[in-house]
């Protein structure tokens, strides 16, 4: 067991290492930020000095070496734009992003799984068809469009909810204040529509596949009540593959905050990365990508380990 966990941990570290290389390589190729940073009337001397100050006048290998050394010290360099350590800039905004993602994920699971089960039990009933059609729209509508329409309806036309910003923050999150909640509703809904629909559909297909199995028929044949067959025998089997999906999808959610935050002017990392990409603010982009990948890899690791607990077939 411990050996397995260490094995997976080692694997994760390798993946992180490769990712760091790719990310750094991409940013190295990305172009020269100096042109953007200096005023138009800067002299050639200014440019050379600035390049030296930023450390980008050296060879790729040298830069990468320096980069790795700094990473080991927990230093990803100073932001070209903000002048502060890049990690700090990203970490400062991370809670706002995670708040959105976590709430959206919880919301999607809370509604997606039960609705998926309902739609799987009687696939031909009218309510199943309604659920399925709605979920189809869920995976068909781009996130930015959902957000736009929500703003148009609830902020512009009805004036019920604020259209931008984060509202009052209490202990890292705005979920504990009424003002904060009002600001959260639309971004979270926007972000969760697609996930909810996806989880719902996967639950449904999984349940329907499991319900065809012999062991479900045998459970019925030995007189286990219908609800136990569905909610214990079948659900337990179909939840196992869902864990993987939910793990992967959480990473996707974090990435999709880029869109949500743009629309709702949410002060998180998504907005930061879009700005930084446009400014070629290399340290910020690298820091952001590394942190996101780290979250992603960490989740995959947790899912792998979790698997050995919930699925007796892979238990060591």
């Amino acid at each position, binding site marked *: 067991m411990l050996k397995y966990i260490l094995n997976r941990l080692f694997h994760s570290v390798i*993946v992180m290492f*490769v*990712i760091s290389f*790719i990310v750094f390589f*991409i940013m190295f*190729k*990305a*172009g020269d930020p100096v042109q953007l940073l200096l005023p138009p009337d800067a002299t050639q001397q200014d440019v050379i000095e600035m390049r030296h100050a930023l450390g980008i006048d050296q060879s790729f290998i040298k830069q990468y070496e320096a980069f790795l050394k700094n990473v080991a010290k927990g230093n990803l360099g100073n932001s070209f734009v903000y002048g502060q350590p890049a990690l700090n800039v990203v970490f400062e905004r991370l809670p706002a992003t995670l708040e959105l993602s976590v709430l959206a994920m919880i919301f999607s699971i809370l509604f997606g799984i039960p609705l998926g089960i309902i739609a799987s039990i009687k696939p031909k009933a009218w309510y199943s068809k309604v659920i*399925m*059609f709605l979920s*189809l*729209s869920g*995976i*068909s*509508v*781009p*996130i*930015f*469009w959902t957000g*736009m*329409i929500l*703003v*148009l309806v609830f902020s*512009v036309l009805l004036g019920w909810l604020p*259209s931008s910003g984060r509202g009052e923050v209490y202990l890292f999150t705005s979920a504990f204040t009424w003002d904060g909640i009002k600001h959260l509703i639309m971004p979270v809904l926007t972000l969760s529509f697609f996930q909810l629909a996806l989880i719902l559909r996967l639950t449904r*297909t999984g349940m*329907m*596949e499991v319900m*065809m199995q012999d062991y479900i028929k045998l459970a019925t044949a030995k007189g286990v009540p219908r609800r136990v067959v569905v909610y214990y025998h079948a659900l337990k089997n179909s939840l196992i593959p869902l864990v993987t999906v939910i793990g*992967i999808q959480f*990473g*996707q959610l*974090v*990435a*999709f905050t*880029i*869109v949500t935050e*743009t629309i709702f002017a949410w002060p998180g990392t998504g907005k930061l990365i*879009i700005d930084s*990409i*446009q400014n070629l603010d290399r340290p910020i982009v690298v820091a952001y*990508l590394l942190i*996101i*990948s780290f979250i*992603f*890899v960490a989740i*995959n690791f947790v899912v792998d380990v979790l698997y050995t607990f919930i699925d007796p077939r892979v238990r060591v």
Partner: protein
Amino acid sequence: MQFFKNELVVEFFEDKLAVGGLVIFIFLCVLALFPSLFSYQNPYDLTQLFLQNSFQPPNHTFWLGTDEQGRDIFSAMVYGLRISLYVGLASTILSVTIGYTLGLISGYYGGWVDTIIMRIADIQLSFPAILIALIIMALWGEGIGKVVIAITIVNWVYYARTARGVVLSEKEKDYAQSAKALGMSNFGIIFSEILPNTTAPIIVIATVRIANAIILEATLSFLGLGVPITEPSLGSLIANGYQVLFSGYWWDSVFPGVLLMVLVVSINLIGDRMRDIMNPRLKR
């Protein structure tokens, strides 16, 4: 008319929603293929635009209103549809070709070929798809061709993984073994024996991923990192209209959005039905 007697085809047509999706999709394809037949004006021909027409709400002349340059929204949508569809189809064809081939080879040969291809896929999947596309576009700058390539790079993994999975089970089947025992070449076994038996899941995923590619392109364009504004797709039309959405000119972005939604829903309806009838695990 052998085609209409095929069991899968018959089964497909039994679902009214799916047939509806197919009809709408075909209609949209016709619109996109011959945009000039359906539109009031060529929205990119500046000689046809008049500033006095700007920001007109929907009316008799301009069914769906006009934008700030006096451009007919309906006409712009038809042209935008063309680009959205092009990006979706082109990137899907490219990524199917690349992913399918790599998946077949990876699954059939196994060993280090498999390890390398699948490790690359694993690492790529360690990044959220949209992030990869975003970075690529940020580095290369906008452009239709670039969007197609970015989406291909994101999507090939899904085909590769699926194809590999199917090949792993197909190559152990007796028909493949018997071809091998006959001394057939590996190339022949992969492409002439195994490939025809792996198309069903690939077709299903491809349908779903066309829809996905269209959404991804729209999202990139919305963020200003997709197709250039001179050749707008539905996504860039929405982005363009979004800037004036709260000034009351809602038609500028809402109508392109509706069309985008209809397009994606119609493709997903088709994909859904195909998934249902081709899923061997739901068949008795």
